[in-house]
């Protein structure tokens, strides 16, 4: 049996002088699985992502990526094997869309032709025809389009692991639903190991194979969406109850 894509073993992390952000936190993401982490703001979700690509290191315990402790990985190599999509996207404003997607390939010393071809392929994949979009600029795009570029950029060198930090948080509900469908379609093809962070249980149900609920730096529940939806745990129920309810006609 292959090693899990990502594994947290009793990870504690805290910022100096504050109570721990994560307290003996354990989690396993199997290869090819989409795990959604849900919790209110400040629950430690973003910290979890940053521990995976070693933007942060644990105080105790260990984070393993593909079976190797992140502290043993060369950080640059690790980050290039882990795609990262931010809520703010963070596209480089001085580069075209095509150049933005081709950043990591170019860091990996691909030839310009190969990098451009890869960027075009990915833009087509995320539903932005490359003919039309590759030469445009980040400030010419809508929020949803920028978010698609962010996903394309994270996938550029075909990393086995993808981290998504509230990627669809700032979008209107329709665009959001559209991107959810798009994400599922892409994931069915690529089978990445994904951690997606959200504060919205509905989004988690729409995207994830398993849903984890984070509260006060601990994983209070982690299971299939159906099981989570039926949970009687008060901390899980609070998040479920916050989901919008469609009134009956």
């Amino acid at each position, binding site marked *: 049996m292959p090693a899990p894509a990502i594994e947290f073993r009793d990870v504690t992390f805290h910022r100096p002088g504050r109570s721990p952000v994560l307290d003996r936190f354990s989690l396993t993401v199997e290869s090819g699985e989409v795990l959604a982490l849900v919790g209110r703001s400040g629950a430690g979700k973003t910290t979890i992502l940053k521990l995976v690509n070693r*933007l942060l290191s644990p105080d105790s315990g260990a984070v393993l990526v593909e079976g190797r402790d992140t502290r043993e990985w060369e*950080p640059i*190599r690790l980050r290039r094997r882990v795609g990262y999509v931010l809520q*703010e996207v*963070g596209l*480089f*404003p*001085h580069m075209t869309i095509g150049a933005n997607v081709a950043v990591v390939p170019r*860091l990996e010393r691909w030839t310009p032709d190969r990098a451009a071809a890869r960027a075009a392929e990915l833009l087509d994949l995320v539903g932005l025809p490359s003919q039309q979009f590759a030469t445009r600029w980040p400030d010419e795009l809508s929020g949803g389009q920028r978010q698609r570029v962010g996903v394309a950029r994270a996938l550029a060198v075909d990393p086995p692991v993808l981290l998504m930090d509230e990627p669809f948080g700032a979008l209107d509900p329709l665009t959001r639903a559209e991107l959810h469908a798009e994400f599922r379609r892409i994931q069915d093809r690529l089978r990445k190991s994904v951690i997606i962070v959200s504060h919205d249980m509905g989004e988690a149900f729409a995207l994830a194979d398993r849903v984890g609920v984070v509260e006060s730096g601990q994983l209070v529940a982690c299971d299939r969406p159906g099981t989570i939806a039926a949970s009687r745990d008060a901390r899980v129920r609070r998040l479920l109850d916050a989901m919008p309810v469609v009134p009956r006609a």
Partner: protein
Amino acid sequence: MSALFRFWVAHRSELAGLLGQHVLLVVVATTAAAAIGVPLGIFAARRPRLAAPLMATASVVQTVPSLAMFGFLLPVPLVGGVGARAALVVLILYGVLPIVRTTIAGLRGIDASIREAGVAMGMTPRELLRQVELPLALPSIVAGMRVAAVVGVGSATIAAAIGAGGLGEYIYRGLSMVDTTVILAGAIPAAALALVVDGSLLWLERQLSARRRSRARRTALTAAAVAAALVLWSSGAAARRSGGKIVVGSKNFTEQLVLGELLAQTIERETGLPVDRRLNLGGSIICDRALLTGDIDVYVEYTGTALTAVFHQPVSTDAGAVFDAVRDLYARSGRTLLPPLGFNNTFAILVRGADARARGLKTIDDVAAETPRLRAGFGYEFVGRPDGYPGLAQTYGLRFPAPPRVMDLTLSYRALASGQVDLIAGDATAGLIKGLDLVQLEDNRHYFPPYDAAAVARAETLLRYPSVRTAIEGLSGRISAADMRAMNYAADAEHRDIREIARQFLESLR
């Protein structure tokens, strides 16, 4: 206004040369300041604790007036002394601060999510800097370079005081001649240059911050690089001075420029050695320092000035004794005072030519008897100096009915000519003496200390090139006060080219 254009047309090749030097100074200084300031700014932006003291130091440097800065640097080895090198050091010091400041601001202004995206994508700090941070901070950095360049255009005019050349030469020359036309001849192109530099860098900055058009950006950068290279090449060509061996210096007033030119042309003619002209240095002390450090090989000094200003000895009225004393003092520090050129640039008691001829006035004794009926006008300096008015009145028994009127030295010539006063104390070699038909009365009691003009040279240079000594000695005793006045008049009043004035005079000696 038309006088100004005539001046420019008459001096067009000189103007082009000075403009070239000016641009070269500013371009080289700004480039070097960017080469220092951008890395410093990057460094400071990453270590906020160091940023504050660094900025404070740079601000202190910035507040030192540039003339004082040139003065501080004079005795410093390697970077100091006179000439373009020292000027560059000062301009670079001034340019670093705005560039550091805008580099820090540019880097800090980058959105945190953009930087985080770069790190998370696996960029090394170096890749992040080169591919993301510097391109995004570039418009801000160019803004700093713009400030540095505009300040540089201004400071470079002051650099003429230490012989760095540039348009400041006209400004200094004009100030010493009290000739607005010449001042404007340097000030207007300098101001225009500042506007052009400001405008073109502002254009570049705008092009760069228009972030969507990468191609326009690349075009702008290429255009800027090509333009900079062209400007550099052409100004370098215009500014090229002979890379010669003998460097002739001079102070920054008309007579000194003429004398410097006379020395230079004489050496060129008689020895065939190439001559580098480092004229317009800002005063005796700067010339002396330049001679000591070997930045110049020879310049013309006045014996009385050397004794008092350079060697801090009391004045004496015996011309021979002063010359010998100064020659010995120079000899002790490896410098050689050559024989006097012939004229004495001392104070001159002047009256109108018409009065002198009507009353047969030749000496100060002649006029002393008439003083109860005369009005005197003196410059501020003459009234206060130990070798000035009080001693003069005592020596000759002058009794004016009213205390002398104190006025600007240059104005006093005109006041005398127009009859507002009847007697003044001027410079013996002032061109206006000739221009306004004034007569110098002989100091028959030898009250005034001697200010005999004589070339002083590095002994080492004279040893290596004995022909230089022979050439300069050929001028000894050949330049009378009348000759000097005529040449000063030609330069100051007739605005004739100084090289041409010197050439004609040397022709006349043959």
